[in-house]
């Protein structure tokens, strides 16, 4: 299938954007300036400024002389790229393959997309009409190659849609500037009297290459479609994606829910047919005023259940701001995994941690309180109490070692340990009494010490002598003392936990 490409040229990109923002500027001459070698240069102008005779590249002072009422704005380099990216995202409603073409254009691969709007002419008309409606001055071009579409959009007077295979005829009357050549080369061609591409298009390749260099030949043949040129899409197209374009914009929650449900259902049926389940999904909605928003969900297991995925999205529907109305929903599934058909009905007992029900519960909880709030612990081969349990988010992971049973650990652990005032009668013995939060505890029974050292290969530090202590009322505590055999250090006491 031959490719069809559209190039869109935004002639007054920056100034149009400013005029959309401030309607009062629409009729006034306006220019954007950028600092360059200690002076301000005009880099972008609008139509009114052009009519006054201002060209981009002159200094701001000259512009003020030529058109005294001109509005000058300072801009930063790279602003046009940012604007183009936004516009490219807007264009995703027409085709998934959109590329930013700096400094002032977009490239769209519309192969197989035009029939959706009723033909190439209608497709272009629809797109141009909408962009002009937003307030941009644009010129489109459609052809089989990127180079030809680019040339037609910028230089042709008519015939913006080049028929299939008609690149040569379309390029003939255009000036050499339409071939995306460097300025020196254009000056050279001009001096030689080549005012149209038709003047040198018939020359043999070797001659052109000798006279004008390889780059010129490449550009010419790319435009003709004899050399390959590729489009680097702004967004990697997602293999599992679906969209619903609406005839009328919608804004009520009920209808949004129905639409999203239908969209998810279509995608899930497709995934089910291929034996896959989605692990993450992105729902993009486009509003009629050009703004868009995204909702993202993730699941703990490959899921193809419409109701479950819908519920996860429904928890976020409060964030959707429909404004004047939403006209397009796109659902992407960037991450899919093979889903096994579980025969869960045959299994009578309570399901394990990786079961579908539990995974769905955790999806719901994670969507509300945040995924990082869900913890599961696995034993780690560390004695240092803070490191003995490793956090994991994976539900299917099984412990590599058994949980140690030989050491008694407190059910409640204070993190970090809190300082206490303790009194021990003999060194290396548990304290006789201690004061914690203004309360005196007299210890009657104690076990210990259990000496736990810092793992030197992880962290430097001393050891702790742990004691299990029981006070007169039967409360059991986990206390530790810092080293007391180092010079210049006295033992300090901490409480680290409560035993049941």
């Amino acid at each position, binding site marked *: 299938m031959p490719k069809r490409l559209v190039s869109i040229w935004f002639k007054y990109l920056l100034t149009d954007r400013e005029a959309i923002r401030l309607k009062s500027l629409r009729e006034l001459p306006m220019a954007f300036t950028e600092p360059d070698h200690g002076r301000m240069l005009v880099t972008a102008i609008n139509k009114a400024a052009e009519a006054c005779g201002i060209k981009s590249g002159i200094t701001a002072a000259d512009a003020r002389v030529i058109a005294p009422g001109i509005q000058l704005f300072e801009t930063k380099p790279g602003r046009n790229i940012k604007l183009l990216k936004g516009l490219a995202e807007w264009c995703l409603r027409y085709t998934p393959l959109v590329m930013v073409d700096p400094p002032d254009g977009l490239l769209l691969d519309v192969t197989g997309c035009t029939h959706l709007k009723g033909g190439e002419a209608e497709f272009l008309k629809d797109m141009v009409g909408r962009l002009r409606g937003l307030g941009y001055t644009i010129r489109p071009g459609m052809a089989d190659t990127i180079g030809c579409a680019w040339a037609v959009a910028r230089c042709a007077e008519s015939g913006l849609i080049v028929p299939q295979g008609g690149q040569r005829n379309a390029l003939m009357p255009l000036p050499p500037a339409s071939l995306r050549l460097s300025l020196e080369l254009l000056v050279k061609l001009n001096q030689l009297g080549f005012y149209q591409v038709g003047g040198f298009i018939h020359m043999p390749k070797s001659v052109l290459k000798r006279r004008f260099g390889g780059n010129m030949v490449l550009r010419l043949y790319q435009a003709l479609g004899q050399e390959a040129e590729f489009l680097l899409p702004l967004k990697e197209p997602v293999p599992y994606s679906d969209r619903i374009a609406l005839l009328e914009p919608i804004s009520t929650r009920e209808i949004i829910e129905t639409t999203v449900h239908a969209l998810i259902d279509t995608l899930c049926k497709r995934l089910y047919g291929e034996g896959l389940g989605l692990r993450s999904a992105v729902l993009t909605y486009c509003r009629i005023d050009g703004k868009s928003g995204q909702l993202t969900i993730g699941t703990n297991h490959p899921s193809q259940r419409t109701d479950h995925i819908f519920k996860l999205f429904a928890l976020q529907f409060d964030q959707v701001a429909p404004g004047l109305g939403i006209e397009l929903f796109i659902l992407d599934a960037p991450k899919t995994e093979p889903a096994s058909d579980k025969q869960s009905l045959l299994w009578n007992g309570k399901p394990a941690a990786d079961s579908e029900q539990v995974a769905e519960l955790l999806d719901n909880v994670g969507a509300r309180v945040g995924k990082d709030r869900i913890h*599961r612990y696995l034993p780690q081969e560390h004695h240092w109490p803070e490191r003995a349990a490793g956090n994991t988010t994976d539900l299917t992971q099984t412990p590599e070692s058994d949980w140690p049973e030989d050491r008694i650990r407190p059910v409640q652990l204070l993190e970090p340990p809190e300082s206490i005032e303790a009194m021990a009668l003999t060194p290396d013995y548990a304290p006789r009494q201690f004061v914690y939060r203004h309360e005196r505890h007299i210890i*009657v029974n104690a076990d210990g010490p259990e000496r736990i050292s810092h793992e030197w290969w992880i962290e430097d530090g001393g050891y702790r002598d742990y004691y299990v202590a029981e006070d007169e009322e039967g409360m*059991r505590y986990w206390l530790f003392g810092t080293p007391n055999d180092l010079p210049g250090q006295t033992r300090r006491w901490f409480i680290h936990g409560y035993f049941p």
Partner: protein
Amino acid sequence: MTATKKEIITKLREDLLGWEGFRPIAPEERQAFALGPIESAFPNQMFPTGALHEFISTRPEFTAAIGGFIAGIMQTLLEKGGVCVWVSYTRRIYPPALKRFGVNPDRIIFVDVAREKDVLWVTEEALKCNGIAAVICETRLLSFMESRRLQLAIEQSQVTGFILRKDVKHLNTTACIARWTVRPLRSQLRPGMPGVGHPRWQVELLKVKNGNPGSWNVEWKDKQFMPVIETPQKEKTKRYA
């Protein structure tokens, strides 16, 4: 005549239990919680699963004791498989310690929410899911309405729920079927042995629906609850250290 009257009353009592959400439990579903004398306090003489239990704690030491007691009950609940969900706002539970109470800590999913009001939301969601063996919820406040919601969720799914209420200032009415307090007691070893013995608690049932409240002393020994038989022990002549 008196016998028939008695029969009628027993029958009515059984019916009432059914209407109040107590399922008659089939003998093969009976789980031995080995709670000993405590079980006799409950209707049908068994620990009610698929119900909401409320534990009152006023001090962190009591919270630790309750944690141990719940873990002991969870050991039996987890025998049939499944996972536990532990929801809390400020969690201090130390997972490796639960192994001593027969619970593999990797079978517990901890949800540590950032906002206190999310605790009950997560608890309700978890209680609705019948793939869960038990849900433990650490919270401070629980109104009657909130507890009723949780109880209704449980009646659908038959999940056992434990509400651990910390720092309770005043007790309010809730729809929980039992209200417990657990406080640690001085442990005892064989006379003459130094050190700290097995965990020993005074378990008190303040309220129980259709049952008899009471107070018991139990000890956790060899991975099961043992009733403590108080042996009069003479005061140690020599105190520790």
